[in-house]
């Protein structure tokens, strides 16, 4: 389906299709019958009826909908929660790297968010209804992420302005010419900052004015955090530094993690593997599978905007082709991503009370050959490519 048509579909959906699932039914409840449903936590339900009201899932079960209810029969199809692309810069206008200082905890991804971005529309068409927005890992304390969702009215909106703080234990945050230049230095710098002081040399005196950035870091006590690290060795230092603070870290990147998956697994920390690509070494492509089988929560992320949002599905396919059990494939782009972003109580699963984000396929979601039949966001159809195509 051409992209232009996908865009058209989004617009159409907003204008035409939305009312189909909207409040015009007598009791306001919309029912969708699905042949198979990936709940988002690794479980699969067969022949379920999902009830949606007021933008939320109100029930998921086998019970037949009441007679005369507005039922959409998709019993030949497979549903799953809308995809969550956990670490992206989609819709962040003007770049996301603020490299003037090492500690910029007050930089907010939400401040650069543009809900009308074409990239985000393309993401919707690819089944992604939620993105985790992150500042680039160019500073040790890079800033705060945000969470955006496809809104019911066709444009994207922020779900959470105050997303997880983002830390970086990777280049370019650490490189010659930056302070600090090593992982060890990042530990020292952050360790001091968490105590509200500068990292100094004996003999240096403290500056006369309090530093707002230090205060902000010192105030961090708990909650999720995204931590960029490339290897298991850097991940260890990162987890010790961030986890030692009481934050709940999720590791991001890990493009050298395949060198020592055992050490990575031993950290017992969830991992987000970004931008899996057919060009990658087999050892890296096999990393999600190895970690998953070792009991680590694995999330996949597309690497957008450098790459098409649809590459999230290619990443799933590559991971499955190289050993990721299929039971982990859907959680890797839904429930676990939500948990890493700290929004698991609102999205990421098809469960009562959560935001009604649903993607329906004509096959398994991790198969690149399957087509998206329907994308529902916030209870409304935002994309129905097969309908407009037909």
């Amino acid at each position, binding site marked *: 389906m051409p992209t232009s048509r996908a865009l058209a579909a989004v617009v159409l959906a907003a204008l035409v299709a939305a009312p189909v699932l909207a409040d015009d039914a007598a009791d306001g409840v919309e029912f969708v019958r699905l042949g198979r449903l990936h709940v988002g936590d690794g479980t699969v339900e067969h022949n379920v009826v999902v009830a949606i009201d007021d933008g939320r899932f109100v029930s998921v079960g086998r019970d037949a909908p009441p007679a005369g209810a507005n039922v959409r029969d998709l019993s030949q199809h497979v549903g799953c929660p809308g995809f969550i692309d956990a670490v992206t810069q989609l819709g962040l206008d003007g770049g996301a790297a603020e490299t003037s200082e090492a500690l910029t905890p007050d930089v907010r991804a939400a401040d650069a968010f543009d809900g009308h971005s074409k990239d985000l529309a393309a993401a919707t068409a690819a089944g992604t209804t939620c993105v985790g927005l992150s500042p680039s890992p160019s500073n040790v304390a890079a800033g705060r992420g945000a969470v955006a969702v496809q809104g019911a009215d066709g444009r994207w909106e922020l779900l959470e302005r105050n997303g997880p703080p983002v830390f970086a234990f990777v280049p370019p945050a650490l490189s010659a010419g930056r302070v600090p230049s090593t992982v060890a230095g990042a530990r020292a710098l952050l360790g001091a900052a968490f105590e509200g002081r500068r990292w100094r040399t004996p003999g240096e005196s403290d500056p006369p004015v309090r530093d707002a950035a230090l205060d902000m870091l010192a105030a961090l006590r708990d909650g999720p955090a995204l931590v960029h690290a490339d290897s298991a060795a850097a991940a260890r230092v990162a987890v010790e530094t961030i986890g030692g603070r009481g934050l709940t870290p999720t590791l991001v990147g890990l493009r050298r993690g395949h060198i020592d998956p055992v050490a990575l697994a031993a950290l017992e920390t969830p991992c987000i593997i970004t931008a899996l690509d057919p060009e990658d070494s087999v050892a890296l492509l096999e990393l999600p599978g190895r970690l998953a089988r070792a009991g680590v929560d694995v999330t996949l992320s597309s690497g957008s905007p450098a790459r098409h949002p649809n590459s999230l599905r*290619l990443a*799933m396919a590559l991971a499955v082709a190289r050993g990721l059990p299929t039971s982990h494939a859907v959680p890797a782009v839904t429930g676990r991503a939500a948990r890493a972003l700290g929004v698991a109580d609102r999205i990421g699963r098809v469960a009562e009370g959560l935001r009604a984000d649903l993607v329906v396929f004509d096959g398994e979601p991790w198969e690149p050959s399957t087509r998206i039949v329907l994308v529902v966001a916030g209870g409304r159809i935002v994309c129905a490519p097969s309908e407009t195509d037909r």
Partner: protein
Amino acid sequence: MHPRSRPLLLLAALLVCAPDAAHGQEAASGRDGTDAQDEASVQVEDGEVVALVGGIVRTAVGAEIRGGTVLLRDGRIAAVGKDVVVPAGARSIDCRGKIITPGLIDADSWLGLDPADTSARLPGAETRASDGFDRWDARLRTARQEGVTALVLGGNREQIVGGLASVVATSGAEPISADGPLVLNLSRRSAAGGLQGAARAESVRSTLESARYRRTTLERWQRDVAEYESARLKDGPTAEERLLLPPELLERMRLWTPSQRAAWREATYKSMGRAKRYKKPKKPASPPKSLSSDPGADAIDAVLGTKDAPATRACFVRAALDGDVAATLELANEYGLDVTIAGGAGLRDHAPALKKSGARVVVTELADTRSARGTPSARRPTGLVATLVTSGLKPAIGTGGAGASRFIRLIASREIGAGLTRAAALRAVTIWAAEAAGVGATTGSLEVGKRADVVVWTVSPFSAESRAEHVFVGGREVTDADE
């Protein structure tokens, strides 16, 4: 070596001669485990007859055969069908419930080439991609595991004339075709290429124009030479010489060039005191050296076609943008080129013209991979392959990259999600890819007489969960399907 050598060994007790430990490679535990597969990844079983029995055979040319058998003998496909009799002594593999397809082919790949090799300047167009193919590249092993049996090496991707494409087998055996189509890069891939868009097309035109000029010049010269030769034959021994000279010398004289003959006469007659000048026939001027003996120019010359003499060599043209495709079609028409056009979104609007021109197409901008960069995120063409099929073309799918070749099945699979039929998807990575590279008669489908490049899959190759259980390249099973 010598009987005397024994005392040395005794004396060497001090040094306790190292054990004759046979370890051409280090054997150790853990991560360091022996790397045997890396070395002897391809098992050679010559002369074996293999029968793949009872599978779902997708030949890529005809209809699907359920419960069919494919017979491989001497590196070729010996039989395909439902009622194939398995000869006694054949190795029979039960393929019930399995899918048998031709080996997959990436229609535009750089796997096995040094990245630097794909952008460097070339001395001439005769440069062959297969000369740079490193059959020891570790990624080839994964390619075989993923059912890829052949790669179209797309030569240089930066220079306007990119040398000759080659088709190589992933087993690392001799190239299927070393001397393939001439690569022309109309689209610029990176900053290294120098010229842009229209300027590149113009540069291709001037290349072809000078090839045409060279051809006419050479033809004229050849005519002149022929005239000279006939004149020279007429200029035989004089009556006087016939009378005086021994027959052996006369016979040898016949082979002399006119100038040699004239020089001889001058010297001989002079010594005889008869300094008579003899007229030297006018020798045609040699064409400039660059025109006469230039293998690069010869390679380009072969792509020129006329009504009477069609081109003897095809062109593989990278034309990503709209304008590039249009320019390519124009050039093809003007110079009688036989073109395969490799590109992306630019192909869409020219589908009817492409169909009319008989050009073959390769869609390369689907991979969305690092090495196939150049297509900004949201512009990746979706459904392009399906559109081209609908227009009656036979698009092949190429990754336009190196590592991505290994996962051509998943890249093609995405096109199914975008509207391509499964049958067409299989053709796009087998027979159409072979045809695009000019080896359609040799490989790319399960037909009797073709190379035995065959894969047995657990389920459809377009499923992420599928595994290639048996992979045959040129009739030899590559045994590294599973670690």
